[in-house]
């Protein structure tokens, strides 16, 4: 199933409000077959968070965001690239 990067501009937000948004997103995900939150990165300078979800479609991401009452400004499909793959292939370089 594809992975998506979701950019959410949250504006000025407290840590508690950020945690609460994560809580809503988590419980709401129970309704979406195949939807899985992988990780998120909060950018305080831009006051936005980029979330990585495995999902069936961008529409599923948008619907989940809307039901969770969390902004969803941009959804793009991405491919994960892990460093372990390359570091284990070149042990001598370390």
């Amino acid at each position: 199933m594809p992975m998506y990067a979701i950019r959410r501009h949250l504006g000025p937000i407290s840590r508690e409000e950020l945690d609460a948004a994560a809580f809503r997103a988590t419980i709401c995900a129970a309704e979406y077959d195949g939807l899985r939150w992988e990780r998120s990165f909060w950018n305080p300078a831009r006051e936005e968070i980029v979330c990585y979800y495995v999902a069936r479609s961008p529409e599923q991401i948008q619907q989940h965001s809307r039901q969770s009452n969390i902004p969803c400004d941009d959804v793009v499909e991405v491919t994960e690239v892990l460093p372990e793959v390359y570091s284990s292939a070149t042990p001598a370089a370390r």
Partner: protein
Amino acid sequence: MRDADDINAAGAPGARPGARGEAADELPFFGRDDQFLRSLQLEAAAEADRLRLKFSVDFWFYIFLRRLSRFGYFTFGPITIDVRLIGDIVLRTAEHIDPYERRYEDDFVRFSVLVVDELKRSGQARIDELHFLLAFMRVEEGLTARVFGELGVTHDQVEQFARTGGRGNAPVTQGERLYSPEEAAEYLGVHVQTVRGWIRSGRLRASRLAGQRALRIAASDLQSVLEPVEPGDAS
């Protein structure tokens, strides 16, 4: 229309739930079900869509109480709430929407901050039913605030009740007879597995002997599973 004073019925039959912490290992009720949040969400969503209702805090409060109620009442320590009456009020007053428009409303967004705050205050790693209950008690608007305002029960009282393993400050009366599950089953005329099931579900309060697995039930607690029969309902 029933008066708002009827919301909280005193003396209703109800379970004697346990609490989290060490006591929760003995009297599972709160914090034992990892699927709690998931199943609560699914139940709330299905019911909201069926009734075409907004996903407000009041609606969630009703679903939460209903899920944990027994015989129409939610009971936890000093709290006893007539869940059917809450349901009547919610169904009568909730705003209707197209199911496609369903989302956590803004009051639920504020509520979610309270739930997370309760989680942090407790020092636990996972959100459980008690976090929800205590967060509901801190909501300052709507039906939830009205119910707890009329109950006159404080957040601290409920937290204290939970900390003391559901017994509050009331110890087993000195000299009171204690029953093993087998003896309790014989006394009540039921199978011992029924008694153990009641203890697991929190319906029947029990204690463990210090450092042992053995359970003991106070004589006075055995009365909690006895409910009066309404006239004409003896079949």
